């Protein structure tokens, strides 16, 4: 076991606790999203394979896998930070963290780090299971890693905002069902936006989730709806914006310190 210096022990402990928290309930936090993604894969590939034309030389089932991976990574990164915070707030045990000398930045990094780990673990598990059934190329591994990390970080950050803002589980469910789900489902997980009418193509381009999925998919096939560089710029810009907002909320003690 490596040794952590006293200076970083606080942030390391919180990160470790957050990782252990989801690991202890891994049926719910890891196995369940993997199973859901595989069911989507099974049903959509069975129904649409050969009927939906996406990219040249890319079968629909293969096209679907990176989208499902990214969708699950984003949802789980969001779920990790948001559910940890709302549970701790409702149960009252957030006080154990608020009483510590951890700075708002350390708190953010530890929560975010754990959410990225969960997102990546879910994505990797879906990949490892699906490559048994589908031939999935990897053209640019670098782009895959960049978008996986940036996507999980973006949604992990979004989860911190939701976790701080929401005061009850009901509000969190609304956030998840009315914001995260529509943005994910309308982002091109199941289709290429080129198959949409031009109006909906234009609308899709206002959805940041589209860029995360499109850029991620580029890493697998070397093909995408828009340039991966554009996607990267959009994702990083959103990540910077949400990080700034989150740090501002944490620094001011918004809804955490009265």
């Amino acid at each position, binding site marked *: 076991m490596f040794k952590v210096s006293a200076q970083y*022990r606080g942030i390391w402990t*919180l990160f470790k606790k957050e990782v252990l928290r989801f690991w202890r309930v891994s049926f719910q936090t890891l196995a369940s999203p993997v199973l859901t993604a595989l069911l989507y894969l099974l049903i959509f590939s069975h129904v649409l394979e050969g009927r939906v034309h996406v990219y040249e030389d890319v079968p629909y089932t293969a096209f679907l896998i990176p989208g499902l991976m990214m969708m699950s990574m984003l949802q789980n990164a969001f779920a990790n930070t948001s559910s940890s915070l709302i549970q701790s707030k409702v149960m009252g045990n957030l006080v154990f963290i*608020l009483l510590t*000398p951890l700075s708002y930045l350390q708190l953010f990094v530890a929560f975010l780090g754990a959410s990225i780990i969960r997102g990546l673990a879910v994505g990797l598990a879906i990949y490892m299971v699906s490559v048994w059934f589908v031939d999935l190329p990897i053209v640019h591994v670098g782009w895959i890693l960049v978008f996986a990390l940036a996507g999980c970080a973006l949604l992990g950050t979004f989860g911190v905002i939701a976790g701080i803002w929401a005061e009850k589980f009901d509000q969190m469910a609304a956030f998840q069902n009315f914001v995260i789900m529509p943005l994910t489902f309308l982002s091109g997980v199941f289709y290429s936006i080129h198959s949409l009418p031009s109006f909906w193509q234009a609308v899709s381009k206002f959805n940041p989730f589209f860029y995360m999925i499109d850029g991620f998919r580029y890493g697998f096939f070397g093909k995408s709806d828009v340039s991966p560089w554009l996607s990267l710029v959009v994702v990083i810009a959103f990540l910077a914006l949400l990080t700034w907002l989150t740090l501002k909320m944490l620094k001011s003690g918004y809804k955490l310190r009265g």
Partner: protein
Amino acid sequence: MAIPAVSIAGIQKHFGVLKALKGVDLTIQQGEFFALLGPNGAGKSTLINLMAGLLKPTHGSIRVMGCDVQSQYQQSRQHLGVVPQELVFDPFFNVREMLRFQAGYFGRGPENDAWVDEVIEALGLADKAHTNMRRLSGGMKRRALIAQALAHRPPVIVLDEPTAGVDVELRQMLWGFIKRLNREGHTIILTTHYLEEAETLCERVAMMKAGEIVALDTTANLLKQFSGKNLRLKLHGSLPASLLPMLKHGEGNVFTLALNELAQMEYALSELRLAGVGVEDMQLIEADLEDVFLSIVGKGSSA
């Protein structure tokens, strides 16, 4: 002179129009065993939450071991261990894990494990150390909550009603351990509903009412200053009207009279003789902190 454990200067806290604290000044020296008493809503927990940085003051400042709780919050929180009033717990972990996490947040690593084990032992949690927090009884959860505040071995320990609703065994165990920590130099700040606890444990007491400190002195001085002795009489008949101004409490034919000085006992007995009221039983009782509390904070309040 050593830096005070806690110094509170001109603290005000407003929640909208509600003025929860109206300007509190208080200094608690290192090594003190200090009680903060007051009825519900007096502002005790608000003051503690401000000390811990869970709330931000409207005006004024608080220092813990010389460190400002706002501008030097990392240093000030290192010095402070707070036992919250509510019975809160993290349902994902067992007792030992929680304590090690708590110590870890404060930068304490494996070198602190022996202390964590000592706290577990001292609070009677040894056989529950590997039990999930969710499975603990209420009393055991309370012990774990206290242990969590002590996990990083803070020099200043704040206990916000730690014995509310707990059995005698735990109270004795807790106070035994806390007294030992106090002897070893830890500063203890306590709020409690059990005034006899404050009286026996604490050297100094602050009484709060409606967001202000209304009395601040050593326990001995408060007892001396605010009340004398009580005379409890069981009479054959009713209390003569001349003794009514001294009446503190009456039920049936048992009456408790407040005596400012012992000479008043002679007066009371002569009045009874004069009225022809016989005395069936008589007891002279020392005033306690409850008497002081009621005379300062007012009747009908609970500590």
